[in-house]
């Protein structure tokens, strides 16, 4: 027999791996049948206690989780296994490095809930980049029923932050000169650090802050623990378990290639050590094969009157002394729909916060009946009978479209935060059964199964790409079996038009995996929230050409941030592969 034949034989051997692992059952000896036959039942109270005893025993060994019954979110098995492992084997100190989009926040939320319910953690601190503080607050409340106080809240400003047991703070706030000692002076039971790769360098205040905070348990969350070299990993692990990798000098000597600081030596030994502190679930493990996503943007040419109104509004707003938040709302409302803008404009005129010339503008706005975006929307809806979700940001826009759909006799159901839980449930059922359109605002619909629908229309667009991604995530998620179609509507030369151009042409946003946009934005060299950057661009531009130019520059920065992200992602995939899965 020659070697080749033998190789063929060998390839058959590996097929054994395709078989499922067998389960064998071994019933243990029991006297339960005799007890039942004797028919001398004991008190039900004792029966309850015995069941509770076994249940509590499982809780002790972390084979049963309390948080599962106390959260109303879709949970996946890899998340549950991760939580159990962190409790059971990692003793509350772990580096959670799941690949993007697998739900690190859900894992952290379940863990926080579990520690709280078990009485293991009462005082909890979440440190996140400034741009993610509100998202964390919102997710902890809506998904885990945990009300965190943040440094940004007005009620917190009245009373000391540390009076609250559950706190979310931005790292920049916590490390500031005024706050560093306050944070490091507190005793926390649990500290969670999101985007923990910002702690890669021991000489930074970020690292020093987390190192100095007194804590029993700590979870570090990042999809990309190593960005430039393996010392970053050493620095992160030293926060988790000081000494696990000995000194930096020892670590370099033992585990880092002399010629390439990104390359490990003694890889197997390092892997064994890392397995004690790190979990990294991959998409291959979770077996996520989402269908393809197709996106198309319709840039609608506004009527001359619409364009004139838009320009006039821009001029009035620029000349005003309105605060940034009001300015941003006005601009986004104007792009969403004129009826959305009318209410706020009226209020600003009444409060004399805006030039009196706005009154004439308001009259003109009120006179607009149908706009060009509405026409395009109707065209899209009437193209086929498939179910579609139409997303709007503002309730007034929702009302405007309700009237339009009623007039056009389109079968729809409206969904917004104004509905009670029961009404929301009914609305989703009605959309599933009969209605063609779900007309929805973003809030309140998370976690509901909408995978029976595969078409989404963004009637307006949030300025924060992560919110756009959240909208997409409502239908492009596990359980979706058909290709997903996303249609974006925007007015030509509007801020949203500029935004979509760079999101599509510079980073292909609509083809990214869910979660990746967050990592890309995290690579921008600013801590300012993305929507705030957009507003600044608008404020700093004197005309459309200048705005175009500024958006182009932002697009280039985004492209660079994406390149950085992809490079780091590749490095981490090579370094960690699938060796740290649950």
């Amino acid at each position, binding site marked *: 027999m020659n*070697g080749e034949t033998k*190789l063929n034989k060998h390839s058959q051997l*590996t097929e054994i791996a395709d078989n499922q692992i067998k389960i064998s059952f071994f019933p243990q000896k029991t006297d*339960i049948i005799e007890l*039942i036959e004797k028919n001398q*039942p004991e008190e039900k109270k*004792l029966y309850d206690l015995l069941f*509770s005893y076994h249940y509590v025993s499982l809780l002790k060994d972390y084979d*049963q989780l309390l948080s599962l019954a106390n959260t109303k979110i879709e949970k996946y098995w890899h998340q549950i296994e991760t939580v159990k492992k962190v409790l059971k084997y990692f003793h509350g100190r772990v580096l959670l490095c799941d690949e993007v989009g697998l739900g690190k926040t859900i894992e952290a939320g379940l863990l926080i809930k579990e520690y709280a319910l078990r009485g293991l953690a009462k005082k909890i601190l979440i440190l996140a980049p400034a741009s993610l503080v509100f998202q964390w607050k919102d997710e902890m409340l809506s998904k885990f029923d945990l009300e965190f106080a943040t440094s940004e809240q007005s009620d917190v400003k009245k009373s000391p932050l540390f009076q609250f047991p559950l706190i979310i703070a931005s790292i920049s706030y916590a490390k500031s000169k005024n706050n560093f000692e306050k944070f490091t002076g507190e005793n926390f039971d649990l500290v969670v650090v999101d985007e923990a790769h910002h702690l890669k360098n021991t000489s930074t205040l970020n690292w020093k802050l987390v190192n100095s905070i007194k804590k029993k348990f700590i979870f570090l969350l990042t999809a990309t623990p190593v960005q430039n070299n393996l010392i970053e990993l050493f620095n992160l692990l030293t926060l988790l378990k000081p000494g696990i990798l000995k000194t930096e000098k020892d670590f370099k000597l033992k585990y880092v290639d002399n010629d390439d600081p990104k390359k490990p030596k003694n890889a197997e030994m390092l892997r064994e050590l890392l397995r004690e502190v790190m979990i990294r679930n991959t998409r291959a493990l979770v077996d996520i094969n989402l269908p393809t996503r197709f996106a198309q943007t319709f840039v609608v040419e506004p009527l001359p009157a619409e364009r004139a109104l838009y320009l006039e509004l821009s001029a009035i707003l620029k000349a005003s002394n309105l605060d940034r938040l009001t300015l941003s709302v006005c601009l986004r409302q104007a792009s969403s729909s004129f009826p959305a803008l009318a209410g706020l404009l009226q209020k600003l005129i009444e409060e004399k916060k805006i030039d009196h010339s706005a009154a004439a503008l308001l009259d003109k706005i009120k006179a607009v009946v149908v706009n060009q975006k509405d026409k395009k929307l109707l065209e899209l809806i009437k193209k086929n009978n498939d179910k579609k979700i139409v997303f709007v940001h503002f309730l007034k826009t929702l009302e405007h479209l309700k009237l339009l759909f009623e007039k056009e006799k389109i079968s729809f159901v409206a969904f917004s935060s104004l509905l009670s839980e029961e009404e929301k449930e009914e609305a989703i059922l009605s959309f599933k059964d009969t209605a063609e359109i779900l007309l929805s605002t973003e809030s309140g619909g998370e976690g509901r199964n909408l995978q029976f629908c595969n078409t989404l229309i963004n009637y307006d667009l949030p300025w924060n790409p992560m919110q756009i991604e959240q909208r997409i995530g409502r239908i492009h998620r596990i359980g979706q079996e058909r290709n997903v179609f996303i249609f974006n509507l925007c007015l030509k030369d509007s801020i949203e038009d500029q935004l979509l151009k760079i999101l599509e042409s510079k980073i292909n946003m609509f083809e990214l995996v869910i979660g990746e946009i967050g990592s890309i934005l995290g690579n921008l060299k600013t801590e300012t929230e993305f929507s705030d950057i957009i507003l600044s661009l608008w404020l700093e531009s004197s005309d459309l050409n200048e705005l175009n130019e500024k958006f182009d520059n932002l697009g280039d920065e985004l492209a660079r941030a994406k390149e950085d992200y992809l490079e780091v992602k590749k490095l981490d995939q090579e370094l960690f592969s699938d060796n740290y899965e649950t």
Partner: protein
Amino acid sequence: MIYKNISQYVQQLSEFLGGYVETQVDSLMEVVFPDGLAQQLNINEYYKFYFEPRPLMEENSLVLNYNSSLLEQLGVSLKEKTIFSQTAVSSLYLKKARLEELFKKRLNFINSTYKIIEIKPSTCSYLILNYKYTAVSEERKDGLTSVAINEHNLFLVNNLYDEFEALFIDETNAALEVETLLPPSPLKVVFSMVSMAIEKILKEELADFQKSLNYRLEKDIKRLSDYFNAIIKEIDKKIAKKKTNNENFDKELSRLDFTEKELERKIIDQKTRYQINVNFKPFSALRVIIPVVALKTLLRCKKKSREINFVWNPIIKDLENPCCKKCFSPVANLFLDEESLDILCPACRG
């Protein structure tokens, strides 16, 4: 009810052990244990239990959480205990209208005719068996699971443990109404059915565990195969070079043979390592008597006939499917054995 809340559980357990319990606020409980018990378990007689972390602790005070060793000490007498208990649910809504219509829609009699003789409220006994299991493979998983079965017709009430539990709020200790009770099947038969069902239930519960292990096994086998493939390729190259030298040629061939066998052996080792063995044991049983609607029906096959009670269950709010006499699976398309008139499923009828 299950005492899922730690303070409720500690209270019930302490009282069961003869302790005197006083709860002042949610997070504080004072307990005095009988002197003898305290000595026997090597614990204090008096405790102040807290259920949340506290910075300062007074004498005899203890923060209890699910990991506290004291909980284990207190529960030691329950560890190996097996219990049978019984209860009844008195009032449940019973469907009266359109039952015949439902019956016609849900059941299909293939080789027999039927006639509903009487529809009347009855009672029926259900046995809930609670199991503790341990699955051991490359890692270990412990869990609890339950099976609920109608003792009269052997219908398995899937995943309804919680619903049963919720009903116990209305439980009564009133005497069981034996006159209206549909006769239970022999316990042996009930247990044959439960034995079959429990393995299926456990398989479902362990599906994710199995999936995760499968994934790891495949990864391990791939790693092994890659490694041994590389060696095999090296040997192949050597064989190609040394074709002329017979002695070395044979040596390499036998090395090749050995390497293949080694791989085969290592793969078998891996598969053995990942094999899942599940030990399981019932630790308690609860018989629940609940009101049901019985549909007394005459079944006729050729010239023979028999009466059978079909059951409308107020908990699942549906008609329970009868079970196949041979394989115990629930049947919607019913065959009758022409000799015994036992109900058979299409597969067992052949």
